[in-house]
């Protein structure tokens, strides 16, 4: 029991030291730009299809539920602002974060643990290249850049799928759907941008947890499996906990 607690504190301390060394490598003499671009391609562009499909269905189901509820209170004129509020502020950053934690977190952790186990990280050090600058920082930056972009795409597509449900399927007036958004109920500076700020934190969290788990991998095949599982689980829990804190902070 006591050991368990100590392990948690030690792990946390190591994790913080790890993040600090990633961040401090920003000032290292050389930023591996091409590595960063390749990682943006892998993390952002590779996840685009997943996010598009997810956002269509999230938009549809959320609009469906809200349509039924608002219909009872005859408040359908506020449909799009309720949907946009829920999606822009909460659903799109959190769902994007969870999906990316599943898709990218596991990949990054597996990659890193493979590199670590085959001692390629050590060989980088032998060449005098800091693994923090060459391996970690490009992924970390790519995560921070890509998540807000994916959230923007999520927002735009899900509001369109919401429109498709309400206007095309349920025969709502086009103007009645769009007006509440423009009419000062949903604000670009607040609702959309808050989602983006959140997602930046989520991106940093997902990638740093995955890198950490990959870097401190145990020996053997089961060690690799564990590290990629832990990367997804811890990142998902971290996202949900952080989401509450950030919502309180940013509202």
């Amino acid at each position: 029991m006591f050991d368990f607690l100590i392990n948690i504190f030690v792990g946390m301390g190591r994790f913080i030291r790890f993040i600090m060394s990633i961040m401090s490598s920003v000032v290292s003499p050389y930023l591996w730009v091409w590595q960063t671009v390749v990682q943006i391609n892998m993390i952002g562009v590779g996840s685009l299809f997943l996010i598009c499909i997810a956002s269509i269905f999230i938009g549809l189901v959320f609009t469906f539920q809200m349509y039924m509820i608002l219909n009872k209170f005859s408040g359908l004129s506020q449909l799009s602002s309720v949907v946009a509020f829920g999606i822009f502020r909460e659903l799109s950053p959190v769902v994007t974060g969870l999906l990316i934690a599943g898709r990218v977190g596991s990949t990054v952790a597996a990659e890193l643990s493979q590199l670590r186990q085959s001692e390629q990280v050590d060989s980088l050090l032998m060449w005098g290249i800091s693994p923090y600058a060459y391996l970690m920082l490009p992924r970390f930056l790519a995560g921070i850049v890509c998540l807000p972009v994916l959230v923007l795409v999520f927002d735009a597509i899900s509001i369109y799928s919401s429109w498709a449900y309400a206007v095309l399927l349920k025969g709502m007036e086009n103007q009645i759907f769009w007006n509440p958004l423009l009419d000062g109920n949903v604000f670009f500076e607040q609702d959309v941008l808050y989602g983006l700020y959140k997602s930046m934190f989520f991106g940093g969290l997902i990638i740093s947890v995955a890198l950490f788990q990959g870097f401190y991998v145990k020996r053997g095949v089961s060690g690799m499996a564990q590290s990629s599982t832990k990367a997804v689980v811890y990142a998902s829990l971290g996202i949900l906990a952080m989401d509450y804190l950030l919502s309180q902070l940013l509202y």
Partner: protein
Amino acid sequence: MKKSHIVDFSVGAFFILAIAAFFFLATVTGRTANSGSEGYELSARFEDVSGLANNSVVRLSGVIIGQVEDISVLHDTYSAMVRFRIDDPGLKIPDDSTIGVYTEGILGAKYLAIIPGFSEEYVKPGQEILRTKSAVVLENLFSKILLLIGTEK
């Protein structure tokens, strides 16, 4: 095409998509009224401002012309003091105008509405609008209706 070209192409397309989504969302959603240096401040005293909040909008003839900056209770009369900002410095409000707290629809947010008067004198920045109409609290309305029904029996 070389592999690096494909990567460049897809990353470029990714960010162009992001910019497109950004502008789409920016045009579709509303803006917070530009507060700060623009415009001028006025105030008004109400008996009841239930539901009004900071950043609630101020309307004139249905058009948004400003927003609420601050709500506080006066220590002597216990009435609510609302300070609000008119965004357009050129928009002058007659000093016999009425200001009231209204609701958008049944579930909607509360807002301040100014009904302009006919005076040739205008309210100066920082001054108070004297004619006010408080928020309608549904419970009070219901109790009045119930009382009415009770007396008719």
